């Protein structure tokens, strides 16, 4: 019985398809745009014959083995450690008061841009960083910064650490969202009554049901960690650097012929990610087998006090690292003369800020404009999709979820290079609106993932009641559903804005130096090593998303201050 109303709004039916196109077309076009030059086709640079020369050049590069190894190790290492810490925290503390403390300590880290967290970590662990200062000279005997390589260490350890402190909060949040659908506390309780340790009970009875739902986020972490650029530029080793950083280096080389090699490297990066995902998938099967074997043997693993304490310690270290790191950025940004090993600068000054105020303000405005535009577009598309789903009784399929994750699984370093090639060809490179479009590809999935659960959880009887009172579909949407869901809508917008602010590669490659944000400026400063300047830019970059989240909290609280029923919903 299709009603007249439904026909009038048939255009809404197109929203899901439009959204898929917004996600899929750039990824597909980008892949095509990088595949062609990888096989010698790049007419603008005189490449009009298909050949394997780019690949020969790539494999002839002596650092290739080292770069691949580094990418594999950091990718797998950062993902495995992040997942392990997340699982330990949940297994040890879920359902307790301490879990709430951990959650509150870690969730703000989500809003910190990757680059800012990486700079903060670098300022903490560098030879002249806060940790060395705190221990000198009384414990170390150093009265000068030691000449050792701690950040950018050749094993990629600091790079992995920089990734882990950011990925643990992300995985924890995704796990929390999935936990709502599993009767976790009862399962653990039942296992405990049979003598199983709390952690063993969780890992053996909750994790198997939960993992299917956090699998895609884990894959996204793996793909990201293996191909990340901005964090690797700040914390990762050089000579060889990771594969993706090397690809970017070739891409920005004045010698344009290296672009062919860069394209081949980008395809290799994609192959690497696919290979790692398959390997991880195999690892999942092995882990499941080990779990089943443990269950068959019936070990209770009751003595888990040490592991529980350890997990709490790791969570706090992660929170403290980022927190102190941001504080470090703040102190450096107002530091005057600062001698080693003093813990604080000899003098404080606003000069670092005042000298930069014009440029920082301009770049911040550009950042806000790009972030706001990308967020508004993403929110609009998301609500249109969800509303179409509601009005037309559509259901999200598993395949749709994979499509949503596609831009997070295909390495940015691969398809953005192709997209840049196409943008240059279409004369759209270095234009703000193109940069915004590129940001939408990454903002949209996060906005959709944040908003879809609360949107679907809305009591649809409210809509039915409104309809029975004579309200049409649009009136219900604008007068009932959106106001009631204002809190989650603004929260999703804040997440989207934070994602946009944190983007490095899309701005760099599509903006082509003509459009720059606080993130691209901050990362560009990393090679110069002027800590005061880095402090100014990285701190500004951190503040942006915080303002977004603060507004998302304050606005509903202000608007609905006299509506008790609107408190703590969604």
């Amino acid at each position, binding site marked *: *019985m*299709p*009603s*007249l*109303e*439904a026909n009038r709004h048939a255009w809404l039916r197109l929203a899901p398809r439009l959204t898929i196109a917004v996600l899929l077309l750039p990824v597909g076009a980008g892949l095509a745009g990088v595949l062609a030059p990888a096989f010698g086709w790049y007419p603008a640079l005189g490449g009009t014959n298909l050949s394997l020369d780019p690949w020969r050049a790539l494999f002839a590069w002596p650092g290739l083995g080292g770069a691949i190894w580094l990418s594999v190790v950091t990718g797998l290492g950062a993902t495995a450690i992040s997942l392990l810490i997340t699982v330990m925290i949940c297994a040890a503390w879920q359902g307790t008061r301490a879990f709430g403390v951990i959650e509150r300590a870690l969730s703000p880290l989500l809003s910190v841009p990757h680059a800012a967290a990486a700079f903060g970590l670098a300022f903490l662990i560098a030879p002249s960083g806060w940790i060395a200062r705190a221990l000198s000279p009384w414990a170390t005997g150093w009265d000068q910064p030691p000449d050792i390589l701690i950040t950018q260490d050749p094993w990629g350890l600091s790079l992995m650490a920089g990734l882990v402190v950011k990925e643990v909060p992300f995985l924890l949040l995704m796990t929390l969202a999935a936990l709502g659908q599993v009767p976790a506390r009862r399962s653990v309780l039942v296992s405990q009554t049979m003598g199983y340790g709390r952690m063993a009970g969780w890992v053996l009875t909750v994790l198997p049901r939960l993992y299917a739902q956090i699998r895609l986020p884990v894959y996204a972490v793996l793909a990201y960690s293996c191909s990340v650029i901005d964090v690797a530029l700040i914390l990762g080793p050089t000579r060889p650097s990771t594969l993706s950083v090397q690809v970017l280096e070739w891409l920005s080389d004045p010698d344009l012929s290296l672009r062919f090699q860069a394209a081949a490297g980008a395809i290799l990066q994609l192959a690497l990610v696919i290979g790692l995902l398959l390997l991880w998938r195999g690892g999942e099967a092995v882990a499941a087998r080990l779990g089943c074997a443990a269950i068959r043997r019936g070990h209770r693993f009751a003595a888990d006090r040490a592991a529980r304490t350890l997990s709490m310690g790791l969570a706090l270290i992660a929170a403290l690292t980022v927190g102190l790191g941001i504080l470090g950025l703040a102190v450096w940004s107002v530091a005057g003369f600062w001698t080693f090993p003093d813990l604080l600068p000899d003098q404080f000054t606003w000069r670092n800020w005042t000298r930069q105020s014009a440029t920082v303000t301009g770049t911040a405005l550009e950042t806000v404009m790009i972030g706001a535009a990308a967020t508004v577009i993403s929110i609009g598309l998301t609500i249109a999709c969800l509303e179409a789903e509601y009005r037309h*009784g559509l259901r999200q399929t598993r395949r749709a979820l994979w499509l949503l994750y596609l831009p997070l699984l295909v390495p940015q370093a691969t398809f953005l290079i192709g997209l840049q090639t196409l943008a240059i060809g279409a004369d759209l490179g270095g234009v703000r609106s193109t940069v915004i479009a590129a940001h939408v590809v990454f903002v949209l999935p996060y906005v959709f993932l944040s908003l879809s659960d609360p949107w679907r959880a809305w*009591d649809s*009887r*409210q809509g*039915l*009641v*409104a*309809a*029975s*009172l*004579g*309200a*049409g*579909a649009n009136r219900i949407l604008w*007068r*009932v559903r959106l*106001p*009631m869901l*204002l809190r989650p809508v603004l929260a999703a917008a804040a997440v989207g804005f934070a994602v946009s602010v944190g983007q490095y590669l899309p701005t760099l490659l599509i903006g082509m130096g003509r459009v720059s944000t606080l993130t691209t400026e901050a990362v560009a400063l990393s090679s110069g090593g002027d800590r005061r300047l880095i402090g100014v830019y990285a701190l500004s970059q951190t503040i942006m998303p915080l303002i977004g989240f603060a507004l998302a909290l304050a606005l509903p609280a202000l608007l*609905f201050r*006299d*509506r*008790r*029923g*609107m408190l703590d*919903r969604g």
Partner: protein
Amino acid sequence: MTDGLRLDLLTITLGDRRLVDLDECIAPGEILTVMGPSGSGKSTLLSVLIGQPDQGFDVSGRVLLDGQDLQGMGPQARRIGLLFQDDLLFPHLSVGENLGFALPASVRGRAAREARIAAALEAADLAGFAARDPATLSGGQRARVALMRCLLSAPRALLLDEPFSRLDADLRRQMRDFVFGRVRAEGIPAILVTHDLEDALAAGGKVISPLGEVRQTAKPA
């Protein structure tokens, strides 16, 4: 007879299971009670009457309201009022705004609209409550607001879906009297869906199962 709500050989089946089989006439001010355990097709019947049938159900027969076939009409065109066991007041609107949401746009002018809202509140013993946050009202007060909101939209029929099951015994009796009294006073045909025998008997109308078996004939009022 054309006035009232008529279920004309209405059957609803899921696969080969027949859930609803009704041929009934409900006159204005009359209450038909459909009683049965959960899962017996009561809520399916309601969703069909509202105009939002669940997928997978086969519906045959007609639903006529004041002689008009409702086939193909969505919930907001049918003008059938709904009361659930939860009051479902909109939490972001004040009590008065909730009522204003229901008041048809044909009631024009701020003063006229406010007067109608004030009168409705008065009828529910809630005079002066217009500016209140619904969350600060008691359960009984909220239930009364929900009924007045429903009636203000000038419904042509009323569906009552276990509307009293959340209330405690004392309040339940008061609320029943209030709702049934308003239904009769406004002359609206109503269907009450419940699994509670006391509710069913208090409604004073015919009591049947979703498959049309008569449990109790209408008491003369």
